[in-house]
């Protein structure tokens, strides 16, 4: 049936759903992010306890030491519901695709100097395993976080990390270097350079407090490693050998900046909710940052030689500034 409808103006009975009108304090249209996020996770009348963890309800705020008056205050400033997330990533993917195509067409990888390739092999490629570890840890947050605001953002981050692991794999393929992937994997498993980082992510795989995992993996570790590798090292390689690595890792660099905005907002709101939260978050940052610095130090050295320690110290200072701005009181060692 094809109805010929004139465009008419009809007065709606209401502008939005009841739970959103109550949350916003007014019956007004809500964004698609708000409609797809707020107050939708079940909070009551669960039928059964999880067989894999019978001490908790299916959704249970007691799975972290952080306490929030409103779990939906942990909003994502990027307003990522699925559609917005996937469109943002597809735009970045388009750019990455064009970059990979350019490198291939111009033969830039083949012409890349051996000194640069050696750094790519030894510093960049093992990071695909680290990103896989981050995927496991972020999916843990997605599986146990409380409220859709945090659990959907963490699940998207898990997929982003998988994408990053795959972009690093493609980077090796762009250099026609499958054997380097095998060497990078054994380095990840055995070389002393990587054992601190591997222990760090493996320890997080058995850490039960999902908010602690968010802090240790996403805020602290990514907050140190991404600027070190995808800003500093990529810039240094470009300066010495021409702009190939920064092209092939543009996704990671752009992603880290965007992701940090989300994390800063989450930390800021959680810390502002109570002094206990602020104290707990600062303690986690202090404890995991010390371990992360120790684990990342050999990577900084592999990337920058004797200057590695100074570069890392600068990045650590940037991270402390970010977190202080988000409302955490970090100790003097910051």
């Amino acid at each position, binding site marked *: 049936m094809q109805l010929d*409808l004139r465009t008419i103006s009809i007065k709606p009975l209401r502008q939005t759903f009841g739970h959103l009108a109550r949350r916003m304090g007014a019956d007004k249209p809500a964004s698609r992010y708000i409609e797809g996020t707020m107050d939708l996770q079940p909070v009551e009348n669960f039928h059964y306890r999880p067989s*894999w963890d019978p001490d908790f309800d299916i959704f249970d705020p007691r799975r972290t030491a952080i306490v929030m008056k409103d779990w939906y205050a942990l909003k994502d400033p990027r307003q990522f519901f699925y559609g917005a997330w996937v469109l943002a990533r597809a735009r970045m993917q388009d750019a990455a695709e064009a970059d990979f195509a350019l490198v291939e067409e111009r033969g830039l990888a083949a012409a890349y100097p051996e000194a640069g390739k050696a750094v790519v092999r030894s510093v960049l490629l093992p990071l695909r395993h680290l990103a896989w570890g981050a995927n496991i840890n972020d999916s843990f947050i997605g599986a146990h976080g409380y409220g859709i605001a945090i659990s959907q953002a963490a699940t998207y981050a898990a997929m982003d990390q998988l994408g990053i692991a795959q972009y690093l794999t493609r980077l090796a393929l762009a250099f026609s270097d499958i054997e*380097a992937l095998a060497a990078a994997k054994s380095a990840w498993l055995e070389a002393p350079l990587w054992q601190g980082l591997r222990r760090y992510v493996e320890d997080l795989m058995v850490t039960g407090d999902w908010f602690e995992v968010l802090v240790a993996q996403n805020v602290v570790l990514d907050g140190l490693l991404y600027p070190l590798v995808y800003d500093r090292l990529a810039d240094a390689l470009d300066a010495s050998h021409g702009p190939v690595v920064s092209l092939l890792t543009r996704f990671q660099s752009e992603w880290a900046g965007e992701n940090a905005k989300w994390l800063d907002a989450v930390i800021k709101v959680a810390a502002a909710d109570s002094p206990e939260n602020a104290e707990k978050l600062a303690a986690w940052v202090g404890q995991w940052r010390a371990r992360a610095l120790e684990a990342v130090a050999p990577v900084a050295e592999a990337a920058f030689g004797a200057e590695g320690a100074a570069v890392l110290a600068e990045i650590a200072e940037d991270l402390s500034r970010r977190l202080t701005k988000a409302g955490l009181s970090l100790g003097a060692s910051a």
Partner: protein
Amino acid sequence: MDMKVDKKLGLKERYALMTRDLAWETTYQPMDKVFPQVTYEGIKIHDWNAWEDPFRLTMDAYWKYQAEKERKLYAILDAFNQNNGHLSVTDARYINVLKLFLGSTPPLELMAARGFTNVGRHMVGAGPRVACLMQAVDEYRHFQTQVHSISNYNKYYNGMNEFAHQQSRMWYLSDGKSFFDDAITAGPFEFMVAIGFAFEYVLTNILFVPFISGAAYNGDMAAMTVGFSAQSDEARHMTLGLECIKFMLEQDPDNLPIVQRWIDKWTWRGTRKLASVGMMMDYMLPKRIMSFKEAWEMYFEQNGAALFNDLARYGVKVPKCFVQTVAEKEHVTHQSWIGFYMKPDSTPFHTWIPEKDELDWLSEKYPNTFDKYYRPVLEHFDAQEKSGNRFNNKTAPMNCQVCISTIKFNDPDDPMKTLIRSKTYKGEKFHFCSLHCEEIFDAEPEKYIQAYISSHQVLQGNCAPEGVDTTAPDFEPGAHIAAYWRLDKAATGDFNGSEDQANFAAWRRQATSN
């Protein structure tokens, strides 16, 4: 980097590097601590790498294709909303399909998102982990696009605006809630059989394909677009479910009896859940595309037979409930609709007695049962309604302890008899709608005694809205139930005479007059 490799790696080789090769055996923490959920169900896995995702989708391609789908979908939604597309549906009764859908489906998609995130975290192999996590984000997509498409209807019609509040409180939504609560509280392998296999592979076609084709047939471009767009992810999900079953069965012969018990359990639980979907097809779509019975035959009996014949080589048998579902396909939709019609004060959607030509259609589609058992009941209710004596059942329903359906389905051997089975466990009496539900209970009684049954909770005084003193001497259980549900009076009862009916007629007149 001297070795020159063939740049055009095949899909399979490339995918192995992109997934399986990323994973490693942890050593600083033992693997069984990192992946603690995969052993306690008794499923034996010897080689996680034997699991291959045949779609072999990497994130770059995933983002690209999913973004294309999302762009199309939201462009159509925006256009539909801008042009008052809601006025182009066949008639306003159709909108009640969306009310039932909004209450029952997006909340379950959200549970699926959570469940697949958990399984995606806990599976050991890279293949299943990646496929499960992709399904997890797809499920976020489904619940959000469903909410977004119905959001505009909510602005103009009653009964949708409290779906978030009602998802855990409304009596008739507890069967779906118990279904997903049951799956998500099970271990990861059972979850995969429950949702990935029994629901996605065996049953979801019946939920989506005829229902969405029905939406298209009834002029609802928004629901059609969202539905089909969601369905485009479903092929991946179905494949994951089937691969999981094959994987478990190929890994160890000891897995067969466990998997068979889950297949029997979850096919039955899913069948019960779909009774209300069938009711939408047979009673709520003003223009019908096929009967529930026809859909059941096409998607369950024929397709299911192909599937189970194929799985027979592993020793898998057709689900135990198969025969009963075939017998019930001619009854359940009628019993469900009549059940809802009889409770006009208790649902946020309207009910009605079908028009004469619609009753004739049902007679034709259900030649063995409709004229004999159900048409007389509907005609009787119709006469009662017209003489000002509308039937109204004000009592709380009795529910099955396992599937939480109201006990209303007939004995498979006698259509005139409601089936109810009861038993005492640890001094307490429990009731079941079927032998299958009773068997599910018997296998895990400590799980099913936990079930939340809303009619019991009401009588225990637990379903009072915030601010009501349940200890007051004059407190009457059930008196506040509509407030506990936030049930809008305008959304309840008969479609005839409803605000929706009047508004739709007036707006449509306005939009079609010159």
